[in-house]
């Protein structure tokens, strides 16, 4: 595998401190950016690199920056470090272990976008990550890397670390801005897009933590170098958060385009399915993305291939489900999440996520009816695309794709009032192992 980019030096002792980070080449990219490039040059460089947003949508980063409205209002940068998509645990690691990489990325991006006030919105639950980023920002101020005339240049930047307080919805960019402005995290209607009317009414660029932390490496190595990794359309590397029923879950940085099967089965990464069971389903990009069936396991992990396979690369949270798991139970658990996290602003999402959870719950517990399966599909149809933000759509992904692929399991629950997975287990009389089937009754 090629040299790591975003996780490089992650395990160097003391890399969370400014001096060690600098001894390992830290902030050289910032110095180079200020010395050698005009802001617009950096935007071009990022466009050449092909870097796309690592938060979920995968929008080309350089293009996003170039969309900023040219007016005389103050511009802002928000780093979205409100990591909370189920199955995703990469930004937390970056912030806890190498916070200066993020701070350096924030400074370079602010320079490129002509921003003089930047915010790092850290999820409230991530106490250590918040502390580390705050400390890194303080160290950067003390060393003249933040504040007035950074490294002797005429560029000045103020960075404020803002902590969330428990609301998944604030990872949605317009809700994040509402939250930063001191309000309930209700999404805004778009357009206008944040690049035109954003935080405090000014043009605003919002990037994910991993995206910004990738920027210094691109400045140091060049756009063409970064673009040499990955595939033609999905360039570079990204962190895949492998979780669920695999032998070695973990965060693995891979060039885009490596097959899912490599991530799941290769000894360097996942090492295969837990207890050597059969693969049942894969959720490739966090719980908001469509479930893939095992025959898609050779799909390359890049934006286009995963889309062609019927899902999304999303946040990079690859969740592996083995045949020990009842799919109805798993989907119920994911749907509960959206019910709890729906902000309540839009009726289809607020009511839809509630009723979908109710119906899944009665199916799971053996009180469901056969018609519930189609009723779920009908609610999904009435929910998707009918709310301000994508949370409602996200809540339907696992249900629609799950029913399409595992309809018989849902119907079994309705017909027999019990779970197909646990019934099969009993029939086969398998010796019970440490990991008993999950979600079976």
């Amino acid at each position, binding site marked *: 595998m090629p040299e790591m980019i975003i996780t490089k030096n992650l395990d160097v002792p003391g890399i969370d401190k400014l001096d060690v980070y600098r001894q390992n080449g830290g902030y050289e990219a910032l110095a180079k950016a200020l010395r050698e490039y005009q802001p617009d040059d950096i935007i071009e460089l990022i466009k050449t690199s092909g870097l796309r947003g690592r938060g979920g949508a995968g929008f080309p980063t350089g293009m996003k920056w170039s969309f900023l409205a040219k007016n005389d209002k103050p511009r802002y940068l928000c780093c979205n470090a409100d990591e*909370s998509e189920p199955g995703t645990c990469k930004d937390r690691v970056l912030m806890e272990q190498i916070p200066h990489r993020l701070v350096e990325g924030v400074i370079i991006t602010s320079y490129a976008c002509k921003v003089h006030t930047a915010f790092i919105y850290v999820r409230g*639950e*991530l*106490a250590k990550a918040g502390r580390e980023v705050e400390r890194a920002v303080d160290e950067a101020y003390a060393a003249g890397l933040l504040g007035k005339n950074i490294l002797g240049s005429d560029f000045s930047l103020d960075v404020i670390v*803002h*902590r969330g307080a428990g609301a998944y919805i604030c990872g949605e960019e317009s809700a994040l801005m509402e939250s930063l402005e001191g309000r309930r995290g209700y999404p805004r209607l778009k357009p206008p897009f944040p690049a035109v009317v954003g935080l405090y009414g000014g043009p605003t660029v919002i990037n994910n933590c991993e995206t910004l932390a990738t920027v210094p490496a691109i400045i140091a190595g060049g756009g063409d170098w970064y673009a040499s990794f990955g595939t033609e359309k999905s360039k570079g590397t990204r962190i895949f958060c492998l979780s669920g029923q695999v032998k070695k879950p973990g965060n693995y940085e891979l060039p885009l385009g490596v097959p899912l099967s490599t991530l799941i089965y290769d000894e360097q990464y996942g090492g295969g399915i837990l207890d050597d069971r059969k693969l049942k389903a894969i959720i490739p990009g966090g719980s908001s993305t469509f479930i893939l069936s095992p025959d898609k396991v050779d799909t390359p992990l890049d934006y286009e291939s995963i889309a062609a396979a019927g899902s999304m690369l999303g946040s990079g949270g690859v969740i592996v489900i083995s045949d020990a798991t009842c799919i109805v139970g798993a989907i119920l658990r994911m749907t509960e999440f959206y019910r709890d996290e729906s902000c309540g602003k839009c009726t289809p999402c607020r009511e839809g996520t509630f009723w979908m959870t109710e119906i899944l719950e009665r199916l799971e517990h053996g009180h469901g009816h056969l018609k519930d399966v189609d009723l779920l599909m009908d609610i999904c149809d009435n929910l998707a695309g009918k709310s301000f933000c994508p949370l409602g759509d996200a809540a339907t992904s696992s249900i629609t794709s799950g029913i399409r692929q595992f309809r018989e399991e849902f119907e079994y629950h309705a017909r027999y009032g019990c779970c197909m997975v646990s019934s099969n287990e009993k029939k086969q009389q398998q010796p019970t192992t440490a990991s008993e089937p999950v979600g079976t009754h």
Partner: protein
Amino acid sequence: MISEQAKQRMRELASRYPMARSAVMPSLHIAQQEEGYITPEGLRAVAEAINLTVADVESVATFYTMYYQKPQGKKIINVCTSISCYLRNCDSLVSHLEKRLGIKRGETTADGNYTLNTVECIASCSSAPALQVNGEFYENLTQESADALIDQLDRELGVEKRV
């Protein structure tokens, strides 16, 4: 009680942001640190420091789950029950902790030592099942390591060993 020092920090935050209102969330964090949860006095202090109405501050405080609306235990245990932890049997971990602490999820022990909550994904998916105690992570848990953790917390709290 909200100390004068805490009120001063809130006022400083209000001038730190481009708009004072943005200081609501960090100020609520301060108020909660002072009193353990969001009290009417906490709301008033934030409202005064930022020059908002109490109702306005309360509208923010009630939206975010980390602002507690009632007193919590000294040790707040938040167990993740989202999908990645679910696939690693977090439900049996929750049941085990309920038994061990003698409370149900969402409750606080009578001595006020522990609150047990189940929470949504805490970004610990690759080291599931996981929980937080007062914001700090404990990962890859088993029933044994969870017991050892409670033993350690008991010692910190000076609690006699439970049966």
